[in-house]
């Protein structure tokens, strides 16, 4: 490592240049950071690219209610239904249309009668083969007699005036078969209609649905939306509460939490590191070491800001952790230079080797994350690598010039590690080794229980209020926001309709409860033609008999011979088509907007079904074998993501492990020190996984980052301690490892204070790993390898 000692000599009398370079760097960082845009949403946590998981995630965003603003109004027991519906109208009208577009509180009162009168006309097109069988059953003589009795009874009642024309058109009640198709169109499971409003089954909840141009990931826009809603809600009378349930509330809650966490974590970790320095170092020179991570943090942010348009808040939060990593290099250089009696050049040459290889292993470990599916992980990897690289240069090139040659006062370092204590107390050595072995064994047994959880919602911050609002919505209306989606795609409307029909063929053999599909109401042209042909054949064979029967039974109840002429006109001249336009005219515009998507690539029909794992498993194989069909569901997505996390994790660990092994081989060129250097990292990982399983935690996306971090840090500790054992010079590595480990723990300890589950998860799990890696490096490696003298 002659290069660093040469470098030191080169700048020994030119320190002004170094200071100038640092100031220039600071200016650059400050200028770039003033323009930095912090991304406060969770999109960095979500997969992008073209993987199955990324595509599924994009498709899940197309779910009808994922894009909607849903307002749930809840009435107390002393509020009547009329009062609730009146208040719903008041709130709906108070929502400004520029933010709450197309706000509706129900389909309107006209929809029911329009459907009743018009949809039945399309029975010839909507009737499937099994429906014709049902119609055939209704044409039996006794059935006709019974139907005409009912018709007569209805006509004599006051409501007869409204039903007369319908009875003339449909004396046998066949149109009800067409109306039954509507049961597959209810996207809100527990809804009933009253005064044209959506009302929950218990009559205590009403609903307002609206669209908005504010993107769900836009936290500022979401904040304005929520504030506007809060103002509008003040118009509600007492006894009626209204809550807005939409992705915006989650984005806002996440952004606010990340902001709070960022300041809390940065302050806490900064103060913690400062306290450690004051406790262990008590030297003004040590402040230069303290400045090193701040510089590397600024450089890392600068690099990330140059590469990305926006920097995730999670990346900045992770900066607190970097403080812990990058300070290690400075500490090793500091302790070595401040203690060693040899010249600075010589000491620097000795300490540069472990510091450089420590940094290289960390860089190699983090570099594997650059291939991650998650933009957040890629950004973190770049951030960490930039921070480590800059810390390495700062520690080996800049720092030695600012530390001076004064020796550390041994009295000041009160928690000094006695490196030769094992020689004096062999029993302690055996106790340490035994304890280590038992802990490893227990953790290894326990880690078998560790499971992987791919549920992204668990990584997103949810306040108690949000959770309660979501629970209230599900209680009142059923699970309207969490259903599985099937996309039937076609380059034109007809091909999409055909694909949607194929999907429905598979769905209808299952329990249809909770299924929503347009297929029963929107047949393709081929199906329409086939059904019309069947309809004509059907009546050609039966008309004479049925007509005679109708006249005979009708006469008995006083009906005229021409009473049902409109029925026969319908039979003879059915409508030619029933398509999107007709459905729109019947008042289904909103439903079509939700279940039929159109873009430059064509059309997509969405079917909804309960997100029941058994049902999804039963359908998955058949559905995915259909061309143009994609099935996505939260539960399936979670399973896929868990699988990918597992696969990614194995790949990352393997890649990082191989890279680290290669670097260790280059460094030590012998198996024994290599294995010893690996002890902290292996212990850290095993204890981390074991403790997670013991605490009932599950492995998530961010624990993958945590594992990489432990690999990077653990290997560093191993390298330093093994190099320390191999060299005759006292580089004060044990002291450096202890202080840097404590510094890292303080950094991660600060992350544990974070409320955001992702940050908290990183902090807690790495805390576990580092807590095991540091004692292993400081106590176990020396127990295996006593220092040469």
């Amino acid at each position, binding site marked *: 490592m002659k290069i660093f000692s040469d470098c030191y000599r080169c700048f020994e009398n030119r320190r002004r240049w170094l200071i100038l370079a640092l100031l220039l760097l600071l200016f650059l960082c400050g200028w770039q950071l003033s323009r930095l845009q912090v991304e406060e949403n969770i999109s960095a946590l979500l997969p992008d690219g073209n993987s199955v998981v990324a595509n599924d995630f994009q498709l899940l965003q197309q779910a009808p209610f994922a894009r909607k603003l849903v307002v749930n109004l809840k009435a107390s027991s002393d509020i009547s239904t009329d009062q609730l519906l009146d208040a719903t109208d008041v709130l709906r009208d108070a929502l400004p249309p520029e933010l709450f577009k197309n706000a509706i509180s129900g389909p309107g009162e006209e929809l029911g009668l329009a459907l009743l009168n018009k949809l039945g006309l399309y029975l010839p097109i909507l009737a499937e083969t099994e429906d014709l069988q049902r119609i055939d059953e209704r044409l039996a003589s006794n059935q006709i007699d019974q139907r005409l009795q009912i018709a007569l009874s209805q006509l004599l009642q006051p409501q007869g005036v409204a039903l007369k024309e319908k009875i003339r058109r449909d004396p046998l009640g066949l149109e009800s078969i067409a109306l039954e198709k509507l049961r597959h169109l209810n996207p809100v499971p527990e809804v009933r209609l009253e005064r044209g409003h959506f009302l929950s089954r218990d009559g205590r909840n009403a609903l307002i649905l609206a669209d908005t141009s504010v993107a769900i990931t836009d936290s500022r826009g979401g904040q304005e939306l929520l504030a506007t809603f809060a103002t509008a809600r003040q118009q509600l009378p007492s006894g009626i509460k209204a809550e807005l349930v939409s992705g915006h509330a989650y984005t806002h809650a996440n952004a606010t939490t990340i902001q709070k966490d960022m300041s809390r974590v940065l302050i806490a970790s900064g103060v913690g590191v400062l306290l450690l320095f004051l406790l262990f170092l008590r030297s003004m020179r040590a402040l230069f070491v303290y400045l090193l991570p701040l510089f590397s943090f600024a450089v890392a942010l600068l690099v990330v800001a140059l590469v990305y348009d926006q920097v995730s808040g999670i990346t900045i939060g992770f900066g607190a952790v970097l403080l812990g990593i990058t300070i290690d290099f400075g500490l090793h250089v500091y302790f070595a230079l401040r203690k060693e009696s040899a010249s600075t050049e010589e000491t620097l040459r000795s300490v540069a080797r472990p510091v450089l290889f420590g940094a290289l292993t960390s860089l190699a470990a983090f570099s594997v994350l650059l291939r991650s599916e998650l933009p957040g992980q890629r950004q973190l990897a770049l951030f960490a690598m930039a921070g480590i690289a800059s810390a390495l240069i700062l520690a080996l090139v800049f720092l030695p010039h600012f530390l001076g040659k004064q020796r550390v006062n041994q009295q000041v370092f009160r928690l000094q590690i006695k490196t030769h204590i094992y020689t004096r107390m062999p029993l302690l050595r055996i106790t340490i080794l035994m304890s280590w072995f038992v802990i490893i064994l227990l953790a290894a047994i326990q880690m078998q229980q560790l499971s992987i959880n791919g549920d992204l919602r668990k990584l997103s911050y949810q306040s108690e209020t949000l959770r309660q609002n979501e629970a209230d919505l599900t209680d009142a209306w059923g699970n309207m926001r969490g259903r599985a989606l099937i996309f039937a795609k076609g380059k034109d409307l007809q091909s999409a309709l055909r694909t949607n029909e194929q999907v429905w063929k598979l769905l209808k053999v299952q329990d249809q409860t909770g299924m929503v599909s347009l297929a029963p109401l929107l047949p393709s042209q081929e199906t329409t033609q086939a059904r019309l042909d069947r309809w004509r054949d059907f009546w050609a064979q039966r008309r004479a008999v049925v007509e005679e029967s109708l006249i005979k039974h009708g006469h008995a109840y006083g009906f*005229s011979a021409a009473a049902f002429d409109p029925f026969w006109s319908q039979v003879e001249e059915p409508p030619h088509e029933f398509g999107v336009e007709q459905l729109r005219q019947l008042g289904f515009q909103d439903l079509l907007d939700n279940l039929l998507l159109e873009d430059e690539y064509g059309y997509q029909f969405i079917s909804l079904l309960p997100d029941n794992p058994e049902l999804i498993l039963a359908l998955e194989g058949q559905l995915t074998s259909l061309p143009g069909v994609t099935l996505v569901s939260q539960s399936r997505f979670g399973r896929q993501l868990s699988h990918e996390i597992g696969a990614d994790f194995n790949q990352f660990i393997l890649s990082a492990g191989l890279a680290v092994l290669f670097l260790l081989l280059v460094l030590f060129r012998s198996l024994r020190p290599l294995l010893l250097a690996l002890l902290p990292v292996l212990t850290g990982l095993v204890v981390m996984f074991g403790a997670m399983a013991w605490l009932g935690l599950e492995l998530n996306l961010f624990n993958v980052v945590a594992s990489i971090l432990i690999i990077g840090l653990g290997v560093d500790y191993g390298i330093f301690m093994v190099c320390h054992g191999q060299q005759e010079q006292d580089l004060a590595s044990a002291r450096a490892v202890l202080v840097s480990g404590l510094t890292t723990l303080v950094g991660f300890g600060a992350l544990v204070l974070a409320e955001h589950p992702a940050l908290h998860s990183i902090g807690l799990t790495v805390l576990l790993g580092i807590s095991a890696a540091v004692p292993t490096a400081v106590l176990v490696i020396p127990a295996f390898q006593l220092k040469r003298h």
Partner: protein
Amino acid sequence: MIKSRNRFFCLFLLFCIVPLVCYAEPLSDELELPEIFNRLQRAADETHSLSIDFVQEKHLAIFAETLISQGVFFYRQPDHLRWELLSPVLSGFVLRGQKGERWNGLSKETESFRIDRDPIMGIIAQQLLAWAKVDIDWLKSRYRIELLSSQPVRLQLFPRDQGETGFIDRLQILFAVDNSHVEQVEMHEVGGDRTLLRFENAQMNQPLPAEAFQAPEF
């Protein structure tokens, strides 16, 4: 010349009188209707319960002949109704507040309903209750009302509601001389069909048993 002067005079009279007549008719309604509504309202306020028979004549194209049916109507304040046909088909409905049952004697089926979930039954119940209570405000909101005669009171109503105008052209309502109840309803439908309801044997403020508002058991 005299002849032509007379013609001119006649035309002058015609042009003067016709607008006056046209103007006088609604003016008369405007003056009299509020008073008549008050009288009807006062009479209705004194009616706590009503039991009355009716004969219904259906002059509908769908039937070969005029179909005559008979039945009974019960009302008890504030919201109990029974409308029952006794012949030719035993059928009808009862209403108790928001809930009710309807039945058909031929099929021997009884079915529960709620007027807030059954729009057609909701409209029928509102209509019958409005007439039983003489809810003038509601009636005026639903119909344009003309006075045909004041003693006995005979009103002609034209629906305002778009849905109702699709079925009903106009209604003529004849009240009893003492205004205590409706005596005859004549409904003219859009296609020319007509229904006539004659009410008789009215009994006011007689106690009505609870069973009067229960569906029959088959």
